């Protein structure tokens, strides 16, 4: 469904993302993990059209999306959420979600119905008339999810929807994400919360210093020495092997 081929992004002398290849197939939940500053969000931004890749190809549903504007990519069925939540602060939850719903209809009543439906999926029904600026962190993360979902995407790009949530809230949102997949939506997510990554993803890619260093099932990736070193520092893998 999504094919990223040899994509590179430079900011001046810094190579943020370097020759990355990855693929997301229909109905999968694929995760992208890596230490801070690894280039995950940059990669997402390129896929969603917010940044222009310097090299490489990005194909969605077998057609290149390179050079397209974010709104065009959204209309094709690929929509992103933001790591730092970007609510329409002056509007209510319902109005926020309706903005997403309007991408498929110009009818206000249809958009409202769709928004209410989506709110139910993410568990925000009781918050519909609340101002988005008054939502908790968990609420805002859900709102990001809801707005994106309201555009009827084929592929959802979730950028750290669990960051800053407590364990109970994480369990809740994991359930929501699984529910979304069961509705036939493919999910590609960036995540730091390992428990959720293990629990959710079919496959995982690991990015470090802009390069892919591993990929595969979450458990195989977690045992990969290169991944352990990337997270815990040089020599960590050996130390762990010796220790136990």
């Amino acid at each position, binding site marked *: 469904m999504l094919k990223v081929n040899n994509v590179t992004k430079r900011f001046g002398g810094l190579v943020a993302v370097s020759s990355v290849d990855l693929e997301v197939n229909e109905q999968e939940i694929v995760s992208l993990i890596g230490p801070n500053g690894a280039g995950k969000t940059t990669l997402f931004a390129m896929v969603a059209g917010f940044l222009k890749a310097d090299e490489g190809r990005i194909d969605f549903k077998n057609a290149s999306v390179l050079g397209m*504007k974010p*709104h065009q990519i959204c*209309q094709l069925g690929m929509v992103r959420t*933001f790591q730092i939540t970007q609510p329409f602060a002056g509007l209510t939850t*319902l*109005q926020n979600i309706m*903005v*997403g719903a309007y991408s498929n209809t110009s009818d*206000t009543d249809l958009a409202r119905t769709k928004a209410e439906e989506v709110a139910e999926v993410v568990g925000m029904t009781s918050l519909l008339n609340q101002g988005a600026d008054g*939502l908790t962190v968990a609420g805002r993360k859900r709102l990001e999810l809801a707005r994106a979902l309201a555009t009827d995407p084929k592929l959802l790009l979730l950028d750290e929807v669990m960051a800053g949530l407590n364990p109970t809230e994480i369990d809740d949102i994991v359930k929501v994400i699984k529910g979304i997949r069961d509705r036939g939506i493919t999910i590609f997510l960036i995540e730091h919360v390992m428990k959720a990554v293990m629990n959710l993803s079919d496959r995982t890619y690991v990015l470090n210093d802009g390069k892919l260093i591993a990929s595969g099932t979450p458990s195989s990736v977690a045992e990969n020495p290169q991944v352990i070193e990337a997270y815990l520092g040089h020599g960590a893998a050996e130390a762990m092997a010796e220790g136990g």
Partner: protein
Amino acid sequence: MTNFRNHLYFLFMGALALIILPYFISSRFYIDVLTLIFFTAYLGQSWNILGGYAGQFSFGGVMFFGTGAYVSSILLTTFGFPPIFGIFLAILGGAFLGLIVGYMSFRSGLRGSYFALITLAFAELLRVLANSVEFTGGGVGLFLTYAPGLSNLQFETPVGFYYFALILMFISIAIVYWLERSRFGAQLVAIRENEDAAEALGINTLKCKIYAIMIMGAMGGAAGTFYAQKYLYLDPPIAYSIHLSVEMLLVTIVGGMGTIFGPLVGAFVLHTVNEIARHFIDTPGLSLIVYGLILIVIIGYLPNGLIGAFKKKEKKSDSTSLDKKTSREDP
């Protein structure tokens, strides 16, 4: 639903009151003040669409007004083209100017104060241009002849202009009323609140902002024709006066940005305060100081305008209305 009906009922009654008002007012002065209030409210509303709803503050709104005024007036003086049709060309001219200014500034990503400054620059540029080219009459200006009649959009009594301005204002309120309930309005508000998020959710932000400035331009164009036919004289300092640019944003900010009635409330309050200050204070210049002080108080203590202050007291508004929410509700 009953809430909605109530709303319409009040709207209808208010409109009716304004329509029959001239039958109860014999003073030419009051009719003129009211005409001016409607005219300013109308211009404020045009600013409100781009500034209050789409969040793009322009500081040169007068450029559409001036261009519209010149379009219909030049057509009239040179070709004898009747203003009743000329006003539509003025509308087109304003919209076209909006397209140019919007495309150039939004395309290059100008936002906030940069956009405000570039619109100011455009207005000033047009003023200088109008001063130096021949077909605008240059610095001498254009004199229109007084020939009352509908085809000239001129009227024998001030009441005629009262209704002309009232109709313009009704149309502007209808436009914003539609905006509040349409997808386009929701998209503009989304752009105001967070442009990146709006873009991510499939909104063509460039196109929406250009449409918004074109609507503003079209409305400003019609206002230009109104002004020219009422005052029968036009020169570059009038057509492109910074004062009018400021006034249209002032009435909107004082009344309440991003609300349907903000511009009208603001225009009413500011004009009334102005007239009262002028009436009761004889010392020259002092009335302006009083006017300025009241302005400072309103803007300092009511950051969301008069409508915003009023709304705060309401518990919960219609949840689908796009009025800027002013109260912070904690979870």
